[in-house]
């Protein structure tokens, strides 16, 4: 797979100075920079002229024109297919799916077309296409709570990116737009939020973003907290819970290494293996239902490649194998929380 390369990348707008941004602001900057640097980039989706469901495109239509920030009819199948066609002709569409959940009404265009056309044609075409898919449970009931990464993790021919902070969100979105492949750009709904509005969780999705241009490469995970006793791999919003859990356990003398894979496809499995070879224990945390997701695959790889380094059964936290219930106490009980992560770590350590 080709990695974006800053040296050959088109020059982008410099913004200057380190700033504290939300994920939404960081994504907006990435879009703005890439659109300024490259004419062929454009955004399309429902209601994005006025900012879209999460305000990612706020102000963009005014600056870039409604031809490059394109409001679509409610025709997910139609406009995702249209984006594929445009990409085949050399344009670089970014499709805002409003809620990732709506992608299911266009699933064939992703599963059968976007991910396979290059392969079936023997490399005749390429499809540089980014799908923005807000994911996860956020108080709206089961049809707006799917973990999109879970459904498409096993689909060959696409990349999946799941940043959990503004720095990664900007750097990865820029890399995704420059990538010549289909990239699912998946951010948990609870990580969106503007600076003015209260975030839904204690941990924030606000962070430092440099003014200088930078990219975060697709396929490279990151050790967020170093530790000795156990490796915890988590992404999206549950990563923040894991980080909180790690801090709490420090007091108990448990040293937790927390890894954010940042991208799921390709997955930086080497980083996890390396860490597990040091800590000899592993916990995986995902928000998707337990039967799905990327965690089981990571476990199967760890068992294959580092079986003799593992000292205790590998633990995993995920949502119940149910749709997500609406009632807030039920929703909270359905997904991994800081509390449950703390308990799971204790159990792996103390047996």
């Amino acid at each position, binding site marked *: 797979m080709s990695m974006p390369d800053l040296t050959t990348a088109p020059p982008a707008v410099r913004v200057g100075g380190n700033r504290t941004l939300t994920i939404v602001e960081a994504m907006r900057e990435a879009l703005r920079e890439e659109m300024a640097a490259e004419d062929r980039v454009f955004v399309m989706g*429902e*209601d994005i*002229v*006025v900012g879209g469901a999460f305000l990612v495109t706020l102000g963009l239509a005014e600056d870039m024109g409604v031809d490059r920030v394109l*409001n*679509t*009819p*409610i*025709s997910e*199948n*139609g406009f995702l297919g249209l984006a594929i066609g445009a990409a085949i002709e050399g344009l670089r569409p970014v499709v805002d799916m409003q809620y990732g*959940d*709506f992608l*299911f*009404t266009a699933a064939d265009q992703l599963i059968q077309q976007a991910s396979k056309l290059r392969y079936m044609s023997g490399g005749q075409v390429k499809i540089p296409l980014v799908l923005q898919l807000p994911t996860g449970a956020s*108080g*709206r*009931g*089961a*049809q*707006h709570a799917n973990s999109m990464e879970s459904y498409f993790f096993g689909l060959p021919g696409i990349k999946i990116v799941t940043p959990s902070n503004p720095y990664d969100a900007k750097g990865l979105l820029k890399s995704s737009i420059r990538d010549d492949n289909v990239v699912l750009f998946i951010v948990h709904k609870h990580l969106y939020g503007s600076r003015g509005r209260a975030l839904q969780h204690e941990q924030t999705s606000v962070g430092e973003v440099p003014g200088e241009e930078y990219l975060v490469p697709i396929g490279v995970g990151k050790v967020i907290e170093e530790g000795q006793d156990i490796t915890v791999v988590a992404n999206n919003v549950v990563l923040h819970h894991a980080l909180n859990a790690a801090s709490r356990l420090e007091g108990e003398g448990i040293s937790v290494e927390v890894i954010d894979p940042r991208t799921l496809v390709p997955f930086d499995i080497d980083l996890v293996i390396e860490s597990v070879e040091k800590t000899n224990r592993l916990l995986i945390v995902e928000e998707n239902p337990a039967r799905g997701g990327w965690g089981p695959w990571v476990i199967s790889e760890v068992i294959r490649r580092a079986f003799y380094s593992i000292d205790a059964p590998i633990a995993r936290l995920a949502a*119940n*194998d*149910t*749709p997500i*219930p*609406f*009632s*807030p*106490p*039920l*929703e909270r*009980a*359905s997904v991994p929380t800081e509390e449950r992560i703390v308990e799971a770590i204790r159990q792996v350590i103390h047996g």
Partner: protein
Amino acid sequence: MPVTVSRLRIPPEQAVGPIDLLPTETLKGVYRMMFLIREFETVVNHLFLRGRVPGTIHLCRGQEATLVGTMVALDKEDRITLTHRGHGQALAKGVDPAGLLAELMGRAGGVCRGMGGSLHVGDWSVGALPAIAIVGASSPIATGLALAAKRQGTGRVTCNFFGDGTASKGELHEAMNLAAVWELPVVFLCENNVYAATTHISEYMKNEYVSERAAAYRMPGVSVYGNDPLAVYEAVKVAVDQARAGGGPSLVECLTYRRDGHKRDDPAAYRDDREVEAWLKTDPIPAFRNRLREESGVLQEELAAIEASVEDELIAAQGFAHQSPYPDVQQRLSYVYA
């Protein structure tokens, strides 16, 4: 070609239905239900702003005449499918306001036991299929309810509510074709409120009317003024009668308007002032109230009594909803399988 489509969509004039279409008692019932929906939504909005209704809400204030006019044309035994903007559809079909409100608040006493919330309200025991929030997806399902009615010989008709924005979804088209080919007893009921979320209808449709699309499947299509319940009733009744008689589906488009933004936090600033002004003048509730007084001779006091009874009902509903507990967390593991 290309046809220029007018951006300005103002209410059609002189489009009300004859007052003597329905007996006065029924008309009073229509008024009561319109008023109940309006007040219910106002309560919901209030509770939402005070943080008592979690998640998101889509209010239907302004569209009450379409909902109630449609429902009067249906029998109690008939079925409806609901949209994301479903509170009023549910109430008009006979869903209990107390259970409805409790559902919005995620309580055990909710019509869906708190599992659905605002986007999924409904009570199948009164024929209101708990709402489907993925737009377009309900149309095939409604067509299946109709297929069952035809096979089982129940004589039931299904009314599939959808919005003007939803008319761009392929699912609706597949469903309309299936219903036409198999002559199923379904009425495709478009609440055309001029917008899909923040986007104006002229941005997603070259047609002046959604009902133009019915001909693509050789089914009748008609557009009526949606802010008068009698105009709506008149058109829907024709469609329902045809469906019940085995004549197959129809598309009825009701031209109406949202008085609020698309959802909870939307000020609807994207709307044209002239358009908003023209439509806000047509508030269906005072208009129908006036018609009742002037054309049917219903007394001011009678109307006031109706309104008072609605307020009482809503106070009781709020009491019920607030007192209803949250479901036990174990309930989250129920209802996955039958």
